[in-house]
């Protein structure tokens, strides 16, 4: 198999939910060996579990047939295909290219095994509540005694220090306390969160970048280190100029609904059959011609300060948009070289010619679900393209890791299994 960019790096992944798994998915898809450490028995959905879902806990279970029809479970060599632990769609997506071993980290023998694994690892990723790793004797101070140049990344909602360190968080709380929610939504209505746990993905992305910076430093100096990622802070870090703006002029920016703050027109508008996002280019006269609204060329509206008359500008162009379908607007707008886009649903992405031409979605076979099309690589590397392989079954790599790598005997394995350690 061709090398990935990160081939040779070994990651121990204790994380759950979305933030940690998205971080290690990036590492794994680009070549790192990621060993996902899971509880031997996937617990039923524990609603009070503030750490979020493990396997089988998200709401995505395959309902109908698989897309290619090749996913007939009965023909597959695995016996546990009815185990929801293996067919959770969000889990399958977030854990591509990883290996799975079972290890009950709450057990003392398991922790010794973990330490033996840590001795051979470059990176440890975890997203438990601050203090948990210390209680287990597996915090950075302990791990660096075993592996002095280890890189450990902890993701938590509020970070490992500070008065809110032990607060309970989840995605909506991080979006609220990170300042993003206040800025999203209609100006006259309440704040709105971004959908689908976006704060968690941002945390995973930041952790992944930080880890590779630490790897770069380690490769140059031999020094490992500890990385503390706070979901609240990564959200507060992507507010564009909002915090600086407050410092510059004392203005705490407010929500602007479907509109840009000061570019005009730049908004989501109604089309005949849905919505488009439209924006004029710098060529204002051409834009006025395209949307058949010559009144826009009067000096007051031809100025970049026209954002003060956004209502007037939008009502002048509204009829042109409402008469056309989103497809027509996209085609016409792009022909005029205006940055116009269609507001698409995730169900429309499959038919999109650009994704198709670039072969973006990856068809991945999985013994428990058959072939499904997954989101593909977020970027393309000429020498080391992403290799996105299916998510592991629960404990699928126990033999490989415990017997081949750690050299445990079959007897030792059997004993550990009996005691539910693995």
């Amino acid at each position, binding site marked *: 198999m061709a090398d990935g960019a990160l081939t040779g790096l070994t990651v121990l992944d204790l994380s759950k939910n979305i933030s940690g798994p*998205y971080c290690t998915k990036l590492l794994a898809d*680009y070549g790192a060996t990621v060993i996902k450490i899971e509880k031997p028995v996937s617990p039923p959905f524990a609603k009070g579990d503030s750490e979020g879902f493990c396997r089988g806990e998200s709401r995505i279970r395959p*309902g109908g047939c698989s897309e290619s029809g090749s996913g007939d479970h009965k023909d597959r060599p695995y016996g546990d295909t009815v185990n929801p632990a293996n067919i959770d769609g969000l889990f399958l997506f*977030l854990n591509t290219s990883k290996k799975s071993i079972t290890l009950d980290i709450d057990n003392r023998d398991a922790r010794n095994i973990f330490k033996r694994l840590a001795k051979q690892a470059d990176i440890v990723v975890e997203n438990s509540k601050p203090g948990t790793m210390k209680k287990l004797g597996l915090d950075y101070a302990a791990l660096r005694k075993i592996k002095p140049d280890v890189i450990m990344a902890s993701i938590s909602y509020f970070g490992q*220090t*500070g008065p809110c360190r032990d607060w*309970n*968080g*989840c995605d*909506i*709380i*991080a979006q609220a*306390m990170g300042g993003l*929610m206040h800025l*999203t939504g209609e100006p006259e209505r*309440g704040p709105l969160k971004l*959908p*689908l*746990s976006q704060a968690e993905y941002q945390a995973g992305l930041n952790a992944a970048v930080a880890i*590779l910076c630490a790897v*770069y*430093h380690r490769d140059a100096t031999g020094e*490992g*280190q*500890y990385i*503390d990622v706070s979901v609240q*802070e*990564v959200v*507060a*870090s992507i*507010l*564009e100029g909002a*915090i600086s*703006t407050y410092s*510059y002029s004392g203005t*705490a*920016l*407010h929500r602007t*609904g479907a509109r840009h*703050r*000061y570019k005009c027109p730049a908004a989501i508008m109604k089309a005949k059959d849905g*919505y488009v996002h439209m924006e004029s*280019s710098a060529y204002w006269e051409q834009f006025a011609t395209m949307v058949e609204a010559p009144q826009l060329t009067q000096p007051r509206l031809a100025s*970049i*300060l026209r954002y003060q008359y956004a209502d007037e500008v939008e009502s002048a162009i509204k009829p042109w948009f409402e008469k056309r379908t989103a497809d027509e607007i996209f085609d016409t707008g792009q022909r005029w070289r205006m940055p116009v886009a269609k*507001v*698409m*649903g*995730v*169900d*429309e992405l499959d038919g999109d010619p*650009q*994704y198709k031409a*670039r072969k*973006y979605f990856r068809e991945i076979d999985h013994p428990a679900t058959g072939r*499904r099309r997954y*989101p593909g690589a*977020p970027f393309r*590397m000429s020498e*080391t393209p992403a290799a996105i392989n299916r998510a592991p079954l629960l404990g699928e790599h126990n033999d490989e890791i415990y017997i081949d790598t750690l050299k445990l005997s079959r007897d030792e394995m059997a004993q550990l299994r009996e005691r539910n350690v693995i």
Partner: protein
Amino acid sequence: MSSKRRQALAGVRVIDLSQVFAGPYATKLLADMGAEVIRIECAARSGRGGALPRLRPGGDFGAAFPDGDTGERSYNRFAYYNEVNRNKYAITIDLSKPHGIEVFKRLVKISDVIVENFSPRVMPNFGLSYEVLKDINPKIIMISISAYGQDGPYRDCVSYGEGIEAMSGLSKLIAYPDGAPLKPGTAYADATAGLHAAFAIMAALRYRRVKGVGQYIDLSMREALTPLLGEAIMDCRMNHRPAKPMGNRHPKIAPHGCYPAKGNDKWIAIAVESDGEWRALCKAMDNPAWSRDSRFATNNGRLAHRDELDELISRWTCGCDNIELAEMLQSHGIKAGAVLNAADLVNDPHLRERGFFEMVEHPEAGVHIMPGVSWKMSRTPGRVERPAPCFGQHNRHVFGRLLGMSDKEIEEMAREGVTAEAPLPYTDV
């Protein structure tokens, strides 16, 4: 923390041709970690907007200038630019001139990474495709960030981040349950592309260290945003269940939302994930009679009656201070947090104690606060060492010190218009 300590990306030199936010956000992350990022700007494409006459423009745009005043050189005083471009150097080169191209190539020879986010046709038109640049420096890593990617039928389509949010399926899900699609409250597609780009660059640097070769990276903003919709995409593929906007609600648990608090535009987010947490919330509310309604005792019951439930909770929260209430609820073990605006963030005792903000002095914008490094690293923490550069501020440093040009040659470049004093003025103010 000593600033003399070796930084994580010490010795990495990045040429940054990128504009606005996606590319600059990627290079911000690298610069915060100690990479030497050199922005290349020119009069026609400054990446900071054109020069404005002295104005007090008003609205959110005006608010982005110190005290609402564009000043003599608006392009050095814009909050958005100055926040994302801290820790970088800036020089001017006009790449439409042969001398500019020649100087650019000399810079490529002594650099590690090139970041650009022009339309895909621009770099080849300058004669600066990856094929050309790798002949000059075989170990160079080049990343092109574009809306739709370097090939395919939409290659030349024009789009900013908001168009990408629309075309990836995100905007459609940003809506109140009864409402039309809205935009995210920040340049979300740009930030997401920038983060993935920084990851890509670091991965390529790692590979180069191991194998000694550079490479080319093609990053489509749309393709980098799409994985963040993975949950909805997988649900759609597995269950033919296209996602619907849920506002602040959660598909599986209730209550989960944003509730009004005392004061103008004050809100609190609350999420209750279990029956135990529900009982804790009831106790925190002092067990009002309605909370003992058996319909609310189980998660399924609360989900089924959440309109009524949200209404009842709102009636309680609207009399309370959101920050005090969040503290009180947290002390009961409930997930709660005040919805913070920029002023609240800057004054947040938790963020302050963690040292999240940094005070930065900019020669033309004054002393201001901005978010510091996005994460904490124990050995190479990174920091804001210097403010965003003024237009052309480092011409002499880069051309003279790094490229060894004589004063005469530097002056000649200015005369030929290869370098510039200021961006072109906005033509339509």
